[in-house]
Structure formats: C-alpha cells, structure tokens
C-alpha cells in the first residue's frame, strides 16, 4: 500500500475521520485508568502528602508541550521543504493543542507550587522556559492568523517554527544558567525522592493518555482545517451536499 496516497487532503480526510474516534476512545480509557491509579492505587507521599497527585496531570502535560513543539516544527518544515499542503495543515492543527499543554503544565505547576514551596510562582529554570515556550506557541499562531493567504501563512509560520526549534535549547540553557546565578538552591526540582513504582506507572499511563488525546485533537482539528481550505474543491462541495 502506498502511504503517500494519504498525503493528499482529499484522501486523508476520511482516514482521519476513521482514526480520530479510535484515538479519542484510547485517550478516554487510558485517562480513566491513569487517574484511577493516580488517585486510588498510588500511595500517599510521605513528604508532600496528597498534593503531589497533581503530578499525574502536570508531568505528562509538560512532556507533551515540549514534544508537540518539535512535532509541529517537523510538520511545518516538511510542508516548507516538500511543499505539501497537508503537512502544514498538521502543524497548524497541533499548535493550539501544544499551547494548551503548555498552559496546563504552567497552571498545574502553580497549583502544585503553592502547598509544596509556599508560592504560586518561582523564577525557576523549568517554569521560566515553559513560559517562554508558551510565548513561542502564541507567536506561531499569531503569525499564522495574521496572514490571510493560507499557503503564505503556512510558509511564514514554518520559518518561525524552525527558528524557534534552533533557539529552544539556547533559551533553555541561558535560563538555566541565569537561574543558578541568581538564586541559590531554595527550590530544587531535580532532587526529588525516588518514586514508587505505582506512581511511575500512573504517570506513564497518563502520559500515554495525553499522547492519544493530542493525536485525536490534532486529527479532529485537521479535518476542520481541510474542509475550510478545500471548501471550493469538487469533493468537499459534493460532501456538503450529501
């Protein structure tokens, strides 16, 4: 079977329509299992009590936020290099999910920080670089939204995403060094106590659930984008009449 058959929006649209419910279902099941492990199976932490349980949302969201930026940039770059429309549509479809993950990671981190560190926000290297990642997502979406012609918007946003990917490690390390220079070890995230096996299992299941959710949301959103952009084509028109 030639997989490149699905690189055309027309053939990908029904495929995404078949795959999306599958991933939504997987996300729901894995999310339910992960939350069950997180709330009822995993033991209470002897240092942080029950407040640590937000880790089952926080860490998967933080992982996905970084991973999705990479995936988004790769799709955007593929779209720029090979001039394939669908790749750029995928990049556009993933950006809001990535921004959402970044926001969830920041929000839950703040909620977690209040009981454990006694403050809503610290200028820690990870928090700061996560905040900057949110700015990068917003920049990508804002640039795409402000150019009316879709193909030009795709290409411009792709260049921005690639520049962003080159910059992300530089930003991360600069923030890290800046942080060690400014404040001592008042807060340490890295010296976490070794984790119980059930906690790790719960976190991994939740990470898979977030992964499935991201794929499902991306596929669902790309279907809307395909319809929106192809509304003048014969196949999309024929489908609307049915």
């Amino acid at each position, binding site marked *: 079977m030639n997989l490149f058959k699905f690189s055309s929006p027309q053939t990908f649209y029904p495929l995404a329509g078949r795959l999306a419910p599958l991933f939504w279902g997987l996300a729901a099941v894995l999310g339910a299992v992960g939350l069950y492990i997180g709330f009822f199976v995993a033991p209470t932490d002897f240092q942080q009590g029950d407040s640590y349980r937000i880790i089952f949302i926080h860490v998967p969201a933080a992982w996905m936020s970084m991973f999705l930026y990479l995936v988004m940039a790769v799709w955007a770059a593929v779209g720029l290099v090979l001039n394939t429309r669908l790749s750029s549509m995928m990049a556009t479809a993933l950006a809001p999910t990535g921004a959402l993950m970044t926001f969830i990671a920041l929000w839950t981190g703040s909620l977690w920080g209040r009981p454990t560190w006694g403050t809503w926000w610290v200028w820690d290297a990870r928090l700061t670089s996560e905040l900057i990642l949110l*700015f990068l997502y917003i920049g990508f979406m804002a640039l795409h939204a402000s*150019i009316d012609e879709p193909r030009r918007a795709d290409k411009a946003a792709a260049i921005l995403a690639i520049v962003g990917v080159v910059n992300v490690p*530089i*930003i991360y390390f600069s923030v890290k060094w800046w942080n060690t220079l400014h404040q001592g070890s008042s807060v340490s995230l890295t010296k976490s106590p070794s984790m119980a096996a059930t906690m790790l299992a719960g976190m991994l299941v939740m990470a898979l659930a977030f992964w499935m959710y991201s794929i499902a949301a991306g596929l669902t959103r790309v279907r809307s984008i395909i319809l929106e952009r192809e509304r003048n084509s014969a196949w999309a028109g024929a489908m609307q009449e049915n």
Partner: protein
Amino acid sequence: MNGSPLLAAFRRDVLQAWRRRADWLTTFFFFVIVVSLFPLGVGPEPEMLKTMAPGILWVAALLAAMLSLPRVYGTDYADGTLEQLVLAPQPLAMLVLAKTVAHWLLSGLPLALMAPVLGLQFGLEGEPLTVLFWSLLLGTPCLSFIGGVGAALTLGVRGGGVLVALLVLPLYIPVLIFGAGAVQAVATGTGAGGHLSLLGACLCIAAALSPWATSAALRVSLE
C-alpha cells in the same frame, strides 16, 4: 568585484538613513527616555538603581532594537526595491547581511555608545561600565540579526508592528540574560568573561544562520 554589490547595498541603506536622520534618532531617544523613566517609576535610591541598571539598560535596548525593525525592509517593500533585491543575481543572504550590518550601525551602535553615559546616571562606575559597553557592543548585532527574521516575516502583514514584538522578544531572551548577566557578574566580582564569550557565541550563530532564515522569509513575503 564580488564584494561590491554587498557594499553598495550597505552604502545605500546608510545613505538613506543619513538623509532621514530623524527616523533613526527617534529610536535612539526612545532608548534614552525609557531608561530615564525607570528611576521615576521605582524611586531614586542609588543602591537599588545600581543593581537594576544592567537589566533596565538591556531591556530598553531590546525594545529600541525591536521598534527599529519595521524600517529595515518596510520602505523597500513598499516601493518595490525589495523585489529587485530578490531578483538580483547576488545571493539574497549576502544582501540581507549587508542590510543587517547597516541596521546595526544605525540603531545598535548608537545605543552601545550612549549606554555608558546612562550607566553613570545609575551610579555604575569603573569596570561594570566598561563591561556594559562591551556587552551591548556584542549583543546589539545579535538583536539586529535575530530581529531581521521577524521583520521579514511580518512584511505586509496585518498588525505587523505589534506582531514583530510577539515573534522576536522571546528569541531575544538569551541575549538579554547573557548581556545583563555580564554586567551583574562583574559587579559581584565573578568576572564577565564567561557571559561575554557566550554572547559572542550567540553572535556567531546568529550571524551565520539568520541571513538564510531572513532571505527565506523575504521570499515568502514577496510571493
């Protein structure tokens, strides 16, 4: 012969700026005014101002550099010169390099030269003041290079002026950290060598890569 189109592009930008001096002086005075606003906002305590000075001067430099960006390609885009530059037989990245250097000379260098005077107002003296100058001298070209990508991407885009801030300011963060960090490091006695080296490394990466990204962005904008 190979260098002459590059030199011509550079001279053209400098000459145009010289004939419209007010445009570039605006950015310069913006920098001076923003820096002067801070003591009025946070109070005149000398000790506090001294510790805040590197950050204030650097943030103001970032904002000033960002404000001057739309002018790099804006007028050329409006009157069609940019299309001719893209069509020219010379590699576009080289012409972009020339224009970026011209932009730095007109907007970055004056800030670096003015910074020691403003630093004196904040009570910086001796070595921190010298390091402030050197950090700005190394850092402002980075701002011009990185900003060029944003300026090229937002050409002819709705709300380009505000958008360029959103795109460019997050990418400026490493330059801000190393630049302001150099001055703070020397003020606390740890030496500015490391920060200045990293700033130099940023400049090398930006100078090597950003002309390519900028020329790709210009081609997209002119489609």
